[in-house]
């Protein structure tokens, strides 16, 4: 349900706040086109709008506060200066300020909720002079990063009536929309899986976008229209495209967080940056990436059970002992043709605990 009047709101900036107030749920769309984007350049591209009440009130109030901090907001605030000083009629001024008080209350309620990434964006908008939002000036918040922050979480943070807004609504918030070439098309031909596919491809091709591969999970689930699981769309989704819902954190990310937010691994060393090869067959489901094939798996064992269940009488020893006997089993197996040795010849005992800790401790000590 694209809302054409956003364009109108963009042209007459002082009205942008008015629109976002009266159509609260649409604030994010108006934010994207009306304020932060229009600071960069006079808006030419069609703006992205959110569907009906797709963003919840908390999100809106935050977006609203972003608007307040940006140019359009400041213009609007100027309009709202004390009566008599401007051409705003008294009653309209009172109505506006009443609305703003309500919004501010909402914002205060949302401030301590789980929306760090939007607050982060807001802080960036606040601290940046308008012309430095241009790309490359340290104010980057690419879509890939935004998607990671919003969807790499155990609990859902984003709601959308139209699931395509899980991408489209973010376009106005990211700073690399211009390079991504994601078209906001709400026609029926653009199915959920097509939109997600297109977005994933665009993100993967952007700088640092390869980390999108931390998101796809099995089994694939897609939240369809109205928040109902869409199994057909999930089936059509290629294995490398995430469902853009809340995905449990990748373990490497969890480990990085456990060790003071340092990323611990650099498995590709100095290999050049990610490279996507355009598929000759034109099949959009296929993604071609360059890389190295390290080895294939020959033996596996039982999965790790995680922490000891609450209320267990066992002090933990017996529970974890089971894991370690499995580790021993794996060690006992000789590979078919052991052609190579571990490059750093890690002692066997050390290997056991280092692998199970994801090598966190080693990094701590070194």
């Amino acid at each position, binding site marked *: 349900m694209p809302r054409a009047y956003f364009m109108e709101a963009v042209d007459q900036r002082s009205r942008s706040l008015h629109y976002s107030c009266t159509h609260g749920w649409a604030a994010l769309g108006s934010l994207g086109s009306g304020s932060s984007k229009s600071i960069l350049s006079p808006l030419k591209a069609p703006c992205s709008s959110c569907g009906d009440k797709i963003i919840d009130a908390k999100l809106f109030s935050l977006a609203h506060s972003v608007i307040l901090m940006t140019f359009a907001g400041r213009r609007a605030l100027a309009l709202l200066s004390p009566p008599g000083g401007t051409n705003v009629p008294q009653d309209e001024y009172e109505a506006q300020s009443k609305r703003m008080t309500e919004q501010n209350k909402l914002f205060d309620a949302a401030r301590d909720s789980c929306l760090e990434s939007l607050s982060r964006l807001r802080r960036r908008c606040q601290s940046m002079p308008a012309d430095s939002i241009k790309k490359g000036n340290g104010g980057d918040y690419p879509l890939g990063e935004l998607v990671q922050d919003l969807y790499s979480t155990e609990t859902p943070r984003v709601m959308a009536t139209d699931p395509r807004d899980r991408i489209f609504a973010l376009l106005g918030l990211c700073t690399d929309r211009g390079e991504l070439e994601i078209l906001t098309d709400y026609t029926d031909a653009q199915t959920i899986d097509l939109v997600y596919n297109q977005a994933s491809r665009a993100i993967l091709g952007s700088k640092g976008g390869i980390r999108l591969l931390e998101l796809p999970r099995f089994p694939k689930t897609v939240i369809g229209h109205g928040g109902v699981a869409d199994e057909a769309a999930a089936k059509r989704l290629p294995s490398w495209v995430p469902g853009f819902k809340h995905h449990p954190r990748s373990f490497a990310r969890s480990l990085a967080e456990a060790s003071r937010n340092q990323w611990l691994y650099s498995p590709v060393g100095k290999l050049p940056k990610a490279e996507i090869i355009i598929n000759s067959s034109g099949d959009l489901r296929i*993604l071609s990436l360059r890389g190295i094939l390290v080895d294939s798996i020959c033996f596996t064992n039982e999965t790790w059970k995680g922490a000891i269940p609450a209320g267990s009488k066992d002090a933990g020893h017996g529970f974890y002992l089971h894991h370690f006997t499995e580790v021993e089993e794996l060690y006992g197996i000789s590979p078919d043709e052991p052609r190579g040795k571990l490059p750093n010849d890690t002692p066997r005992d050390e290997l056991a605990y280092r692998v199970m800790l994801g090598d966190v401790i080693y990094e701590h000590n070194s």
Partner: protein
Amino acid sequence: MESMRKLRRAAYLIELWRRIISELQNGTSIEENSAMQEMQTDPELGSMERLGASMKTLLWQRDAPLCGNRLEVMRDKRPFRTKEMGLYGVGPRLTQPGDVIVLFRGAWTPYMLRPRGDRGESYFEFLREAYCHGIMDGEAAAGQSQKNASHLKITRQLITVHNSNFALR
């Protein structure tokens, strides 16, 4: 007899593991440190027997939450062993023999893929990220870009697939 030996060995490893975590969290006490050195010099007999059952339980009660936190990150991960190099690591729950570990250019972790064939064309199914000990610091990639002597074995191993294209579907 064999199973007893395995169990004792596992008990030794788990004790070592607990101490490492405990040390990280609490700092090392002198007693524990020396006990650990004993264990390292005498792994098969270990100090588990010497430690005494009550002491053992006590230590486990203290450290179980710490150990649990660490293992929680690894929940549902499947330990694996690789075919050619015998590398050891943990992959996603769905990992099964035949899956492959790849390093994509520019990626931050290795990934697990499943080779698939469909009407004569081959492609990979994307599974998830993996931890594979021995390649996490660029060892495999170093073998690719610079002929480092210590990595020659890996290089020979990998040279045929240098910069392959991986078609994911």
